[in-house]
């Protein structure tokens, strides 16, 4: 009985050791470090194997796009707020439909802009990585669904 227990412990130790070794071997430590720091740019750099020059070019593209992004954000926020206020005050269905169309138009404009931006970023990546980047992110852009209550603050 003691021999069987000893053998079982040996087998168990071998299994645990193998699990630990394979976990360490297969782990992407750079990816995990970026996740722990919630640093998306660090992730972009390691995930898509960017050189310093490529990373700098992409950082500049993001910086330039942030101005346009802020404009879209304000436009979408105000359109949603307008719609929320109209819904709250019981505006006619035709008015609500127009305001909903307005929100949809602004969101579509944002989607087109971000799609164009992602394609520019992809073009700055190494061959093959740009396609992978678009495959990972474009479906998320396309499948976006609005969540949460629309803001009623127009000044943000």
């Amino acid at each position, binding site marked *: 009985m003691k021999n069987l227990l000893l053998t079982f412990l040996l087998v168990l130790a*071998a*299994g645990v050791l193998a699990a630990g070794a394979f976990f360490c071997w297969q782990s*992407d430590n750079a990816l995990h470090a970026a996740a722990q720091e919630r640093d998306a740019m660090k992730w972009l750099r390691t995930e898509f194997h960017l050189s310093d020059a490529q990373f700098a070019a992409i950082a500049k593209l993001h910086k330039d796009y942030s101005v346009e992004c802020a404009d879209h954000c304000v436009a979408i926020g105000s359109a949603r707020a307008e719609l929320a206020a109209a819904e709250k005050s019981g505006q006619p269905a035709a008015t609500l439909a127009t305001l909903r169309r307005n929100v949809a138009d602004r969101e579509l404009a*944002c989607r087109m802009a971000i799609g164009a931006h992602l394609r520019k970023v992809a073009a700055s990546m190494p061959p093959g990585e740009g396609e992978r980047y678009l495959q990972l992110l474009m479906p998320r852009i396309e499948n976006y669904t609005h969540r949460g209550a629309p*803001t009623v603050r127009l000044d943000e």
Partner: protein
Amino acid sequence: MNTSREPLSRVLQSWRIAPPGDPQFRTAVWARLQAARDTRWAAYMRQHAAASCAALALAVVAGGWLGQWQAHRRAAQDREMLATTYLAEIDARVIADNRAETHAHH
């Protein structure tokens, strides 16, 4: 063969043994017991060599698979979270959502 007429019981009663004291006796006994125990496990392993090797191989393969699966699962979770964080920084619709949520909490 005993040819003496003296009764055997009397001879036995007068028989005295005075063995020399051995200070290493206890240590030697434990060492022999340990050796016997080691031999028993080694013998057990030899006796069940095929089953033991199969169990070891199975444990290594299963452990390796589990470790690899855990590493891939963690990478997928990290990637998912980072992609979401990345888009939250550049997608105006998500930024507007987040702002609305922040205002709703306040």
